[in-house]
């Protein structure tokens, strides 16, 4: 039973939604047969329900965070003082946001209205921390470009040459370097060449990847709807 019920839920929900994609969509006057109405109702409301479940997933994420870090602090595991930082900031932001501190009186208005404390949290903590973490990546790319990206095989060489041309084509240096070319050889200009890479071989490669993934999606979906794969992604 523990395994059967979730599998039935997945299959029924999935199959109903697949069918509903093919059902007629009548205009505003309604007037469709009741089974059609039922499919449309499901199609519309499962989307809404999914959004509600998504919020519960956020809550679950917050609760597991709480559980993990509280246990780290209680058992004095390695780096436990940092867990205190996480806990305090998590609970603090939660209180500020759920009680809509600052801004319009009481619980009225929007939580991001001017004056709300959550805006200060957003601009003063969340934005700089997240932005700085992402900005680190530029440094990592620079160092990997120097120390790890090598012409080690035909494939990696082609990749690096293509990257080189596209990057160069986006700088005035690329234009300047190919200025000596006569008009008739204009297609060899680095900036033109880089646009060509983007719109021909790049599109060919990306389309092949999309088509391949779409086929994979069909196989995976059928396996799971047929109850063969585990809905949780784990092994049975």
């Amino acid at each position: 039973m523990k395994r059967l019920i979730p599998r039935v839920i997945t299959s029924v929900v999935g199959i109903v939604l697949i069918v509903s994609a093919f059902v007629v969509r009548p205009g505003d006057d309604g007037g469709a047969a009741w089974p059609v109405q039922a499919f449309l109702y499901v199609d519309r409301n499962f989307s809404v329900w999914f959004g509600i479940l998504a919020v519960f997933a956020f809550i679950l994420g917050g609760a597991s965070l709480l559980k993990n870090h509280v246990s780290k602090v209680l058992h004095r595991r390695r780096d436990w003082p940092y867990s205190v930082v996480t806990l305090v900031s998590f609970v603090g932001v939660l209180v500020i946001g759920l009680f809509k501190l600052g801004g319009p009186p009481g619980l009225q208005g929007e939580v991001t209205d001017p004056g709300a404390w959550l805006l200060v949290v957003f601009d003063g903590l969340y934005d700089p921390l997240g932005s700085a973490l992402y900005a680190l990546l530029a440094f990592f790319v620079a160092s990997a470009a120097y120390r790890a990206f090598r012409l080690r095989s035909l494939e990696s060489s082609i990749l690096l040459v293509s990257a080189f041309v596209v990057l160069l084509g986006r700088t005035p240096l690329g234009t300047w370097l190919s200025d000596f070319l006569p008009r008739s050889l204009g297609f060899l200009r680095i900036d033109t060449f880089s646009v060509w890479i983007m719109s021909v071989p790049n599109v060919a490669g990306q389309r092949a990847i999309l088509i391949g993934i779409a086929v994979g999606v069909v196989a995976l979906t059928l396996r799971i709807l047929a109850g063969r794969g585990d809905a949780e992604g784990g092994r049975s």
Partner: protein
Amino acid sequence: MSGKLHSLGQIDRRWLYLTLAATLSVTLMIGPLFPDVPSAFTRPVFDSIENLEPGTPVLVSLDYSPYSAPDIEPTAEAVTRHLLLRGARPVFVSLFFDGNNMYQRLRQQVIDRDFPQLEEGRDWAVLGYKAGGRMVINALNQDLSAMYTADLRGVPLDSLTALGGMRRLGDFPLIVAFSSGTPGLQEWILYGGDPTGTPVAGGCTAIGMPEYLAYFPGQLVGLLGGLKGASEYEAALAAGYPDRDFPRRAGRAMGPQTVAHVLILAFLVLGNLAYLRRPRREGRST
């Protein structure tokens, strides 16, 4: 020579970090502005907005967080300016939980600054963020009111003149999505544009550009990729509306951007020279 080059390959990465930071800082302080012209991917977005009738509601989705903002916010600002200049009525939604905050910033930078005479609810509307990603789009396909009962201020949808009688996604003549990842432009194409036939135009961070180009021009009207796309759009806007003096946020950032590209290219070349000239006997086994 090969020995020297090889020892260059052993350089501590912190020197590379320092070189990058120093080069960018110096260029930022000099602050050059590069001229730009719209590419074949940018032009169709500009034209499709230029051709909108005044008063047309356009669905605008802000699907980015503050961390990717430098790469996508300038695009959102330039396109929103253009929409408002044309008298179109943007209806803002978001699939990112940071979306409402990103809207507040956009409002400060664009509406409050350049269009103080416009009025919320009449000239633009803000429906805001909803959780659920692609499912939000699917619900909007059938009925806006399935997801949204009111705008961010609590005004019911029926009272928003900016919506102009739009009931569902398919009623809009254009969807514009600014996207920094998932959920984003791809979801708007798969769940919004393709099933309803509504044209989708988009802006994305540079990292998404190569992949999204697969959808151009059939499923995607046009695509503004990263800072460069924004800079091109700013240039097109400046050329089309020479009497308005809009900030060139992306254009100003293109200088340091360009210098950094050249630096990375130099790193690639030097690193590989060191690799190719490494003493043979060491091989890979060191």
